[in-house]
């Protein structure tokens, strides 16, 4: 982003923060208390963090010529920004999502295959009937 664009974003970020109560609660979970000013600062820092992360994620997406941000791009962004512990946590999430995607794909493939085998079996049944009909007619001309 250009400097001017960044300043404009700064202005708008000021009006767009996370719910203060939730930020306070998150800090409380860590047994941390702070002045209202401090809590507000942390809230803003989180907003800046998100913008920053989205920036590097967008870069990661562009590198592979994609327009929609995916978890992979976000993950790469975290790594590029060297947020190591956050990266490690999110990598776990992403790895599990990958497994789930693969399994779902596999399930669908297997379901498709099962359907295909079922269809083939139905065709086989029809063919068998024809054979029976054919067998009724003797090969030689004895019945004529």
């Amino acid at each position, binding site marked *: *982003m250009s400097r001017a664009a960044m300043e404009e*974003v700064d202005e*708008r*970020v000021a009006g*767009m*923060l*996370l719910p*203060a109560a939730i930020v*306070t609660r*998150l*800090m409380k*979970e*860590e047994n*941390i*208390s*702070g*002045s*209202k*000013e*401090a809590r*507000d*600062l*942390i*809230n*803003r*820092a*989180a*907003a*800046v*963090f*998100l*913008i*920053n992360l*989205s*920036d590097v*994620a*967008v870069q990661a997406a562009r590198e592979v010529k994609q*327009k*929609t*941000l*995916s*978890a992979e*791009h*976000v*993950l790469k962004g*975290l790594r590029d920004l*060297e*947020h190591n*512990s*956050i990266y490690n*946590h*999110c990598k776990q*999430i992403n790895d*599990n999502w990958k497994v*789930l995607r*693969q*399994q779902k794909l*596999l*399930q669908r493939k*297997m379901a498709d295959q099962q359907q295909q085998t079922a269809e083939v079996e139905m065709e086989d049944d029809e063919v068998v009937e024809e054979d029976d009909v054919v067998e009724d007619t003797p090969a030689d001309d004895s019945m004529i």
Partner: protein
Amino acid sequence: MAWRKKSKKNVPIVPISEEEVDAIEEKVQDLVKTQLPLGRVKKIVRLNPDVEMLNAEALQMMAKSAELFIKELSNAANQNALTEKRKAIQPKDIDKAIKKMWEFAFLEDALDGWPKMQPKKRKPNSIQDETVAEETIVEEEEQEEEHDDDDVAEEDELPETVPEDDDQPPPQSMKDSFAEQF
């Protein structure tokens, strides 16, 4: 080539049982769940003009990352507060964390001059009042937490936005020469 990166495509995907799939789904839900509202997170991310679209997973991951970041920064600031034997973190603790730690370097200057925070005028000799006021404020906030909206912010700002030690009013004589420069 004698050395080649292992191709991921050649690893066959082994199907796993439904119970295992359910277990993994449960686990990942637990890992990614966050108290931050996704809608708000999305709005903030959308402030970035370069962002076109983001899929659901990306949004979830960003929200979780923000939550982890809040905790990280709070903890870092808390360490600094503890070194000065304080239990509640203050802006200067956060500033110190930003200066000290590489992962917070991007915040340098990013948190200054925010439109909303305007320091109120200080009365001279108000130092004693400050410390007393600060302690009572902390207690008040605990009660007022539920009503703690951005809109209500102004009311509570009174003593707390008083600048920190470094900004102590200079002694009378220096003040004049300081003013003379301008």
